[in-house]
């Protein structure tokens, strides 16, 4: 059964369908970021410490792009999704950082 939009949704008339442009840009950027990471690894002139740091940053940037655009997180009505993911990151971060520290000490 179809319910009408709630009044709060009627008020926020942000653009719903911006078309596919942003999605194609995200795709292209993802390819570029991936290629950058692969080339950084295959180029043995760069120091391994730098490469580690670089590819991890690239991965996070790509992940954020895909989550925001492809998973519509930046669109209206996604407050709870955003909060959940931020909390998830806050929970994951101590776990992963501890794991990394623990191995490398």
């Amino acid at each position: 059964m179809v319910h009408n939009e709630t009044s709060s949704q009627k008020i926020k008339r942000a653009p719903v369908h911006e078309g596919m442009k942003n999605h194609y840009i995200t795709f292209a950027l993802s390819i570029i970021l991936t290629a950058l990471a692969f080339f950084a690894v295959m180029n043995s002139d760069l120091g391994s410490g730098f490469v580690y740091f670089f590819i991890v940053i690239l991965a996070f940037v790509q992940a954020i792009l895909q989550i925001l655009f492809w998973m519509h997180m930046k669109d209206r009505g996604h407050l709870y999704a955003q909060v959940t993911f931020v909390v998830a990151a806050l929970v994951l971060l101590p776990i992963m950082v501890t794991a990394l520290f623990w191995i490398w000490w």
Partner: protein
Amino acid sequence: MASHAASHHEVKRYKGLMDWLTTVDHKKIAILYLASGLFFFVLGGIEALLIRIQLMFPMFNFLDGQTYNEVLTMHGTTMIFLVAMPLVFAMWNAAVPLQIGARDVAFPFLNSLGFWVFLFGGILLNLSWFLGGAPDAGWTMYAPLALREFSGPGNDYYLIGLQIAGIGSLLSGINFLATIINMRAPGMTFMRMPLFTWTTLVTSLIILFALTPLAVGLIEMTFDRLFDAKFFNPAGGGSPVLWEHIFWIFGHPEVYILVLPAFGIISEVVATFSSKRLFGYGSMVFATSLIGLLSFMVWVHHMFTVGMGPIANALFGVATSLIAIPTGIKIFNWLFTMWGGHLRFTTASLYAFSFIPSFVMGGVTGVMLALPPADYQFHDTYFVVAHFHYVIVGGVVLGLFAGMYYWWPKMFGRMLNETLGKISFWFWIIGFHLTFFIQHFLGLWGMPRRVFTYLENQGWDLPNLVSTIGAFLMAISVILFVINVVITWAKKPDAPGDPWDGRTLEWSIPSPAPEYNFRQIPLIRGLDCYWKEKMAGNKEMTPAEPLGPIHMPSPSILPFIMALGLFISGIGFIMSKYEFENSFLVAIFHSYAVGILGLVILFVCMIIRSLKDDPGYHIEPEELEAKGAKA
């Protein structure tokens, strides 16, 4: 179009056993969780008595070492996973949708699935007693003791039984989060929700992030034991400490999953029976959220002696001590609620009021344990056993009993007998303190935990005897409680809708709650919304919608079958390691045929569920008029 079809759709309605097997109604699911939780409570309690009998005298021969290890492991595992968590889910299902003005949870089908999956997981776990021995490596299942090399088949039942039951917990967490976020009645902003709903929200968030690490740990150890993986086996490059990290990243948030709902219940019961609104609502919400967040940052305090070094230990020691602060805020707020209030002593409020000093005692020993240098002395002694029983029994269990006596009329339409309740309360509280207070000293005097006996004349003989006597007092209390439940069940269901002069929304509807909860969704005008209406002179809540047909979800047998499929699969994979004599059994189990069959059943049911749309059925206004106030 869809609604047009739904009102013509004939939906099967069941009676009797089939009604209970197919229900997706949160109120019935609450009763299912309650009954199962109480059944396992008796089982876990018997296991506790066996432990205490064996430890009653030095060098006693009541149980041998192996059996004792199994009883010990099962006692802890049962109480945490098959008693405390299900009873918490029972309270959630009984109260939360009613407290927020919803007609059901967001995912009624998943609600039912969560229950059946828990029950089959619990059954699988306990089947181990009959199939070669129960798990025996402690509820914490540390590697390498828990691996194939050092233990029998019992630990597989733990790993797979809890894996299955854990799915249920995760589903409940997601369900209640979505329900509370999306389905509150008009006017109920987050800061107008009752505290029990708030603690449900935060606890569900904890479940969301804590249960999956457990699932991963369990599957990794399952791989080690069943498929010769090398996660935790040092011989293959694995790491036993990795197991500890993964287990406690789950295990510490788990104890907050248990205690936060108890905090929520205490907030409701203390306010109601002090005839006064909860003091410091905003700070209670803040404290609950902070506890939820911090609960993920302290897990290493279970591992101070593992050798991570002083810096790691110090960081986590500080984080652990920090958790005491929001908890302290809560304690003071409860005390200030009681101060100046008109205190009423019912069984529910007796449990709630006694929670406060009991839990505080457990909390302060927690702060002692939080200091790494001190913990080196306390670790693996009875001091720790005393601490966690104080916070779990003196905290979670007292809270759950308070909640049961409080919400029993809403669930069953009958009040538990107050005289019998008070007598069983006194047996419980005296027995509890008698059993566990002395254990602090046993720990300080050097008695290690998880020992099946001890030598005489170390100064431990009399304390252990005293502790056992306390356990028997608690057993008497449980027997009285069971008698109370049975005689109450035989009574007429004529409890009033609002037996306690309550403050929150669930007391504005009849007891037991009708099938559809609210004839009309109410309009919420403030915190303690029902009290607000009472103070304005209204007998009932103001409705937020006109009377109309109420859409209800259809019952379904699929959750039961899906859980059964998982159970069959679990049995199949566990038995793949058994040495059978019968060649047919060898053929079907060693080929994983049974394990795979169970999964096939599960996936087929998922496909059926996806393909068959569930239009539900409607309760028409005429039926509502005719039914009046009864279900």
